[in-house]
């Protein structure tokens, strides 16, 4: 597939080497970017994601290698020519004086205005359209320095859009934003890429979101592009955990869920759970640093997904099969070792006999702590 559309590549980096004055930060990175596609850089802090983006927008020098924009080497292009093809939103904060959000967005029209930079009716139309697309029209006439970080980011994206680029470079567009703005901004970027055939190259810290929004993911580690591929390829197995250097259990690459490492030690509490009822209890125990065991859980249970990363031990059974007898025995043994037992289930269906038996066992041994109604 890649070969087929090779000639439509809009941005291409070949063996890019860049960094600050005497320090190489980005080493031998190559990638391709196609119209309408989002490529996301992920990787640990200090890996060189920002440096890579800054060298592409020519804020930092390229030591060797080439970046091609629409087939032309960027080193040989004039700034004014690049301005019409590439725009960006970086993390650096702006403090413009006496500028409304609309004024800030309007600066994106710079490459298209005349000698004195006066915007035409048409230019203002484009500005307002961009603001609307990014849902920033409600703050259009407010002072840019006085709106929230989220609104500011929307305005900056609208500004970048006003520049009518073919390529958009975004450095951590969702950092410091709350959930609503994160989702809103990423879906805005998605929409821009799809509707305007915009090629987007961005860095993200939220790997779970990177998976949902990107067409391609480029993993950066120690300044090198260590792996690239579709989100499906990158999120297969435990590659993400290795990339960020976290324990395998701390990240669930299927759900994109992060968990604090489990407490070591023999379980002090056994949690009888299932169907998502146990998650709250798991985290409550983890907060108090109490090692615990959970069971009996089918492997397709949402509780199982969480328990397998935060519980010391999980008694589990293969999904869609009857629970084998030794599972129950293992669970009983764990209850014997624990100081107490909690049950988050309120009722037991016909296919959950095993947990009903387990609860009875706990009550008989006097370990069951009855939940307060």
């Amino acid at each position, binding site marked *: 597939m890649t070969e087929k559309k090779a000639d439509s590549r809009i941005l291409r980096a070949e063996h890019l080497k860049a960094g600050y004055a005497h320090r190489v930060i980005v080493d031998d990175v190559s990638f391709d970017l196609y119209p309408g596609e989002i490529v996301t850089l992920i990787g640990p802090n200090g890996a060189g994601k920002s440096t890579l983006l800054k060298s592409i927008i020519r804020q930092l020098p390229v030591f060797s290698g080439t970046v091609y924009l629409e087939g032309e080497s960027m080193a040989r292009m004039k*700034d004014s020519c690049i301005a019409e093809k590439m725009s960006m939103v970086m993390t650096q904060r702006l403090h413009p*004086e*006496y500028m*409304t959000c609309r004024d800030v967005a309007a600066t994106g029209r710079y490459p298209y205005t005349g000698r004195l930079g*006066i915007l035409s009716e048409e230019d*203002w139309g484009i500005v307002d359209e961009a603001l609307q697309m990014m849902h920033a029209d409600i703050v259009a006439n407010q002072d840019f320095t006085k709106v929230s970080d989220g609104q500011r980011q929307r305005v900056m994206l609208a500004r970048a859009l006003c520049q009518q680029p073919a390529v958009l470079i975004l450095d951590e567009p969702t950092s410091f934003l709350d959930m609503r703005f994160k989702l809103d901004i990423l879906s805005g970027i998605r929409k821009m890429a799809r509707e305007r055939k915009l090629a987007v190259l961005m860095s993200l810290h939220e790997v779970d979101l990177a998976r949902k929004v990107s067409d391609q993911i480029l993993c950066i580690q120690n300044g090198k592009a260590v792996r690239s591929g579709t989100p499906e390829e990158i999120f297969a197995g435990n590659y993400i955990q290795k990339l960020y250097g976290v324990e395998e259990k701390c990240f669930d690459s299927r759900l994109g869920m992060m968990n604090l490492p489990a407490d070591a030690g023999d379980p002090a509490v056994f949690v009888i759970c299932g169907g998502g009822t146990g998650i709250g209890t798991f985290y409550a125990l983890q907060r108090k640093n109490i090692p615990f065991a959970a069971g009996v859980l089918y492997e397709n249970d949402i509780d199982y997904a969480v328990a397998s990363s935060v519980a010391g031990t999980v008694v589990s059974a293969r999904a869609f099969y009857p629970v084998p007898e030794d599972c129950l025995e293992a669970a009983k043994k764990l209850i014997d070792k624990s100081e107490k037992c909690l049950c988050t289930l309120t009722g037991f269906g016909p296919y959950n006999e095993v947990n009903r038996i387990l609860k009875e066992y706990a009550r008989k041994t006097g370990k069951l702590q009855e939940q307060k109604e």
Partner: protein
Amino acid sequence: MQKSKSNGRYILLFVILISALLALMLWSISTGSVSIPFREAWNILFHRSGQTGETYYTVIHEIRIPRVIAASLLGGALSVSGFLLQTFFGNPIAGPYILGISSGARLVVALTMVFLLSRGIMTTPAVMILAAFIGSMLAMGFVLAVSFRIKNMSLLVVCGIMIGYICTAVTDLVVTFADDSNIVNLHNWSLGSFSGISWSNVRLMVVLTGIVLVFTFLLSKPIGACQMGESYARNMGVNVKRLRIILILLSSFLSAIVTAFAGPISFVGVAVPHLMKMLMKTARPLVLIPGCFLGGAIITLFCDDMSRLLFAPTELAVSSVTAILLAPVVIIMMVRRKGGRDD
């Protein structure tokens, strides 16, 4: 809709500023240690009544008109210079006087004058301007060298003030120990004054400041981009390096012209751009460059009037008046800025 409303506002403000400047100019021409009735002054100005020999005619044509034009023009140039420096350094407290650029210009002019006078050569305005420009560039060079090492804006200003002190001290030494009757002249000049400006000086400064200001105005667009920070300016297609060199040259040249003719004038360059921003509620160079020019002209002319009227016939140094009037503006502005920003 929003835009046309603010455009109307700008036009109205410009009309008000221009009228105010003209009115102030007329008033300045008719008042002074020799008070000339307004009607008389008006007739002399617009109906060419009166003869070359008459006192009023001479006072108005040979003394007041050149002085009024010089004060307005140079004041305007000074505040545009300040605006450019503030944009260049991204520093609200930058100005040609505060950064020591005026003092640098003054030092080299004083040295040149003393050197030439000691050899019996009269200095020409062109030589003065050249000397002032060299001095400006030297001081600017120091400030730039410091700014590469120190990213802290307040420290940069402190360094500028120190450079200013050093230059002033050396100038004072030169002026004190140069024993020539012409030095009296030099002493007046070195305090900052618009007195004794001739018509030929006025013509020269009109041409020079005119060219520089028009050129600056035509750079409104890239200067506006620069206000967004270097990386965004670059992304908008501005050749930032070249623009910065041009900004340095323009602002140094403007303050050099001012210093060559009128000596160092304090605080106009730093305070007026802020006052104009507050008045016009914008920082757009397209509006603010002419705005600063008009504002600087009005304020400097007013200060010059005060300097000659307050204790007439004794004249104060213009800087004494500008400092009393404008230094508080700078302080208020710094306090408000500190309080209004969250990081």
